[in-house]
């Protein structure tokens, strides 16, 4: 495993407080959909920031992030040509489904890894639907990109774009399997509501992001525990007690 000094080749705001950054590496970077990277931010920040891969060609990776706190705000200042240190790829990606009709459910910055997954599923001849939830119209992104691979339903809390309400109101009843990435309450609601099998991509605060510090440990439904960073971030539905 390795860290990479990557060059910023593209960096733009694609929605309110939501940035897409593309980083270039000299050394081949092997990754698959669902994996994440752990990105170093400038001092006084000690901890890296875990961010999902929105795509990777092996030479270029793209990540989409929202500026919640100080670390991501610092990252947002990085200019083209500057360097970002990346640890990764980390965690286990999505297991591709046996089933034919696949629904992707993304909440906010949970959408980017699903875009890459959609591309793979599409390539594999699956029928893909995507329900993408955002707070409001200013926050919507990757709609068009997703439409290349999936039947897209955009949902906003206030109805300012697409449908109104929560994603759970606008699910695809035909799907045989689902992949969800978003806040825990969304994952929980989906687990409760959907009878079909599914996969959750989880978030937890991390230290090492490689399984060494137990910062991101969550209980499994069988009373054991797993680390989101190393054993996840993607877990089959029902494996983990969603906090």
């Amino acid at each position: 495993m390795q860290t990479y000094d990557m060059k910023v080749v593209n960096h733009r705001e694609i929605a309110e407080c939501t940035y897409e950054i593309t980083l270039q590496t000299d050394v081949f970077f092997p990754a698959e959909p669902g994996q994440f990277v752990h990105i170093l931010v400038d001092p006084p920040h000690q901890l890296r920031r875990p961010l999902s891969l929105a795509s990777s060609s092996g030479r270029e990776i793209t990540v989409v992030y929202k500026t919640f706190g100080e670390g991501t705000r610092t990252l947002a200042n990085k200019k083209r040509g500057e360097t970002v240190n990346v640890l990764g790829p980390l965690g286990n990606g999505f297991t591709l489904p046996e089933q034919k009709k696949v629904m992707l459910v993304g909440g906010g910055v949970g959408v980017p890894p699903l875009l890459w997954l959609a591309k793979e599923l599409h390539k594999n001849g699956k029928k893909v639907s995507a329900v993408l939830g955002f707070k409001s119209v200013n926050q919507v992104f990757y709609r068009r990109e997703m439409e290349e691979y999936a039947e897209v339903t955009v949902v906003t809390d206030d109805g300012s774009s697409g449908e109104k309400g929560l994603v759970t109101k606008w699910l695809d009843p035909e799907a045989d399997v689902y992949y969800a990435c978003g806040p825990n309450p969304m994952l929980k609601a989906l687990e409760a509501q959907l009878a079909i099998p599914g996969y959750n991509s989880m978030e937890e605060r991390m230290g090492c992001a490689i399984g060494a510090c137990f910062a991101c440990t969550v209980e499994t439904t069988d009373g054991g525990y797993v680390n989101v960073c190393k054993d996840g971030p993607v877990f089959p539905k029902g494996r983990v007690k969603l906090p």
Partner: protein
Amino acid sequence: MSLHVHLPGLELKNPVMPASGCFSFGKEYAQFYDLDTLGAVIMKAATKEPRLGNKTPRVAETSSGMLNAIGLQNPGVDKIISEEMPFLNEYALPKIANIAGSSPEEYAETAKKMSPHVQALELNISCPNVKEGGIQFGTDPDLASNVVGQVKKVSEVPVYVKLSPNVTDIRGMAVACEQAGADGLSMINTITGMQILKERRRPLLHNQTGGLSGPAIKPVAIRMIHEVYPYVSVPIIGMGGIGSAEDVLEFLLAGASAVAVGTANFHNPFVMPEIIADLPGVLREYGFSSAEEAIGGAHY
């Protein structure tokens, strides 16, 4: 340039090792470099029974530091011996087991099981993150002496005591532990802190408080080691915010005979091999011809 340092039970080819809890049982960082590069390894805390630890969030970030409240999660001493030690045993480097418990007897029982498998024990009497896990032992010299005494009776290897900085009188704690038979001291564990999640109007960590580590606490670690050094004759393993070979030298000068690196591993997984590579040059730059020569150098 010799980086070799000698401590009871530990012949270290260099004075740098991972701090307990930041390195699990070694497997993960072995993906980055050969563990035998390190002076030794200090393992995650072991307790008699498995512990699930605290609920998440377990970590928070602070200015030049972090808070953690892992809560001594570990699979229990038996599983550590059967499932984690075999991997580490493929490496030649000295192994130090970190031991926690909720009573002197529990410490002793775990220590007894662990000691045949390692070169030294480090008693964690200073974990601020569990109700029953140590910190009461780390803030009362009599309780600390009792734990140390009981462990010393059963341990086959030297016993280091990891002191809590959350005390009025660190020197008193150190002296009490030495008198109770400690072969060495580890200083410092984390300083109890808190962060409040303004959105939720409550402490961010599920455990409410957590232990502060990282560069923010380095001056406190240096002060405590410098304060204790003249009053004990056992060696000190220093830790708290180390991230460079210069930092290591500062700890040696303050009085540490070896050092442990915790939080910095999360920042840069290669930090320890980098420090070890840099150390000879830094020692030379400041006029030392070996690591041992620098130990206690700031006392006159």
